[in-house]
């Protein structure tokens, strides 16, 4: 009975939590149970959800566990939502992809890669908490560098950043000619080819 009870407790906790719960967090909330027992309970709960045609699934995201509705029910669930469903613009996705794969990355680097001004997009992504300010880069001008957040992992249903397919894998899918590994971007005006200079002049002075 004890393991059944543990499973019920874990389900209740995941139900109440307002975000993914990490294993450490579960262990600290349930000091009477050991880690092994909790892990088993999570596994049992996951199987329960799959086998018994439940309306929820147990997802492993953002370094924790969370209950979520089934993807095949998305359309019905959306009817319940008051707010409009989440939608990403192409520019938001491209900027997010660059930040996710190249973090820590500066705004100038994102703009160099995309070839367009990205200030507005970066601001929106910051406001939506999908990216965050990581600090400043140790180069002249000390530009701000950005990276992705826990909310990014939660939103994109990722266990951690390593769960993102590598750029190489994506490229193989698209069957593009393989291009060399990620290197420094030639953003230093003195090093770069002449034509990107005009873009850099619009950069904020800091």
């Amino acid at each position, binding site marked *: 009975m004890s393991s059944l009870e543990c499973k019920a407790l874990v389900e209740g906790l995941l139900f109440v939590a307002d975000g993914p719960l990490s294993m450490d967090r579960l262990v600290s909330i349930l000091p009477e149970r050991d880690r092994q027992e909790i892990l088993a309970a999570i596994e049992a709960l996951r199987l329960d959800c799959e086998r018994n045609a439940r309306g929820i699934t147990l997802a492993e995201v953002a370094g924790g566990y969370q209950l979520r509705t089934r993807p095949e029910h998305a359309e019905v669930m959306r009817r319940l939502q008051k707010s409009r469903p989440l939608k990403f613009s192409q520019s938001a996705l491209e900027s997010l992809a660059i930040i996710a794969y190249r973090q820590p990355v500066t705004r100038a680097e994102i703009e160099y890669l995309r070839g367009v001004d990205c200030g507005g997009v970066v601001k929106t992504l910051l406001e939506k908490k999908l990216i965050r300010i990581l600090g400043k880069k140790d180069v002249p001008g000390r530009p701000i560098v950005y990276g992705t957040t826990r909310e990014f992992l939660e939103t*994109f249903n990722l266990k951690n950043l390593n769960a993102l397919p590598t750029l190489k894998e994506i490229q193989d899918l698209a069957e593009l000619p393989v291009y060399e590994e990620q290197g420094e971007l030639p953003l230093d005006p003195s090093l770069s080819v002449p034509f990107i200079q005009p873009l850099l002049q619009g950069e904020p002075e800091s």
Partner: protein
Amino acid sequence: MTGSPTQLLFDPLQYSGYTVRVDTFEGPLDLLLHLIRKNEMEICDIPIASITRQYLEYLELMKELNLEVAGEFLVMASTLLQIKSRMLLPSPEEDEAGEAEEQDPRAELIRRLLEYQRYKDAAAVLGARELLGRDLFSRSLPFPDELEEKGEDQPLVLELFDLVEAFRQVLSKVPFERFHDVISETISVAERIGRILDKIDQSGSVLFEELFDEEPLTRELVIATFLALLELCRLNSIKVAQSEPFAAILLIRGNESLSSEIEYVES
């Protein structure tokens, strides 16, 4: 290959309302990729004259339609023209023949196109995932947030962006003329104040010289440190002592008692 830009870029069978379609390129790189794909060209060996002509025709079309052409598109236009003209130059017969490969004027553009293509694909992969709030839903009942309900020593959740935004909001409500300058200047003095207090608090006292024994000692750092020192003296936060003339200058905490000050805050 020639034709009016409209026919060239927008197959009417594919796009009924091309004016809407015009706006959907993310930028010059996106437009170039579109042209390359449409013409079934190789990114690694772009026929630069042809692509340049089509690119310029597209910009001309945008202009005819009275659409705004962002600066980036124009920058790329002159880049293309520049590459095209460089392709026409007889290749310089330098003795460093090994670098001839690098001299392809298109190299940088090709590199950027390939790189952009990678992130465009990555964006598509991201967008195709099952998204929380679109395909999956979790419970949305946050606990009420209150910092005031303290007690336990819980970790803090704070984002730098929130801090800056909060400051921006405060300032937006305040008459501006009083608070425009200083910030970056103040900060380095403030930072020195923090450093000096940290040093004193660590060992009870610190030698004047020790304030200047760190990092690459720049002129700005010395000035900021000295201003910080003056500020701390003015605030009676530290005392400057010397056992005899020309002896080492010692800095110690002022005689303010902290506990009484916290009570003062409460009142």
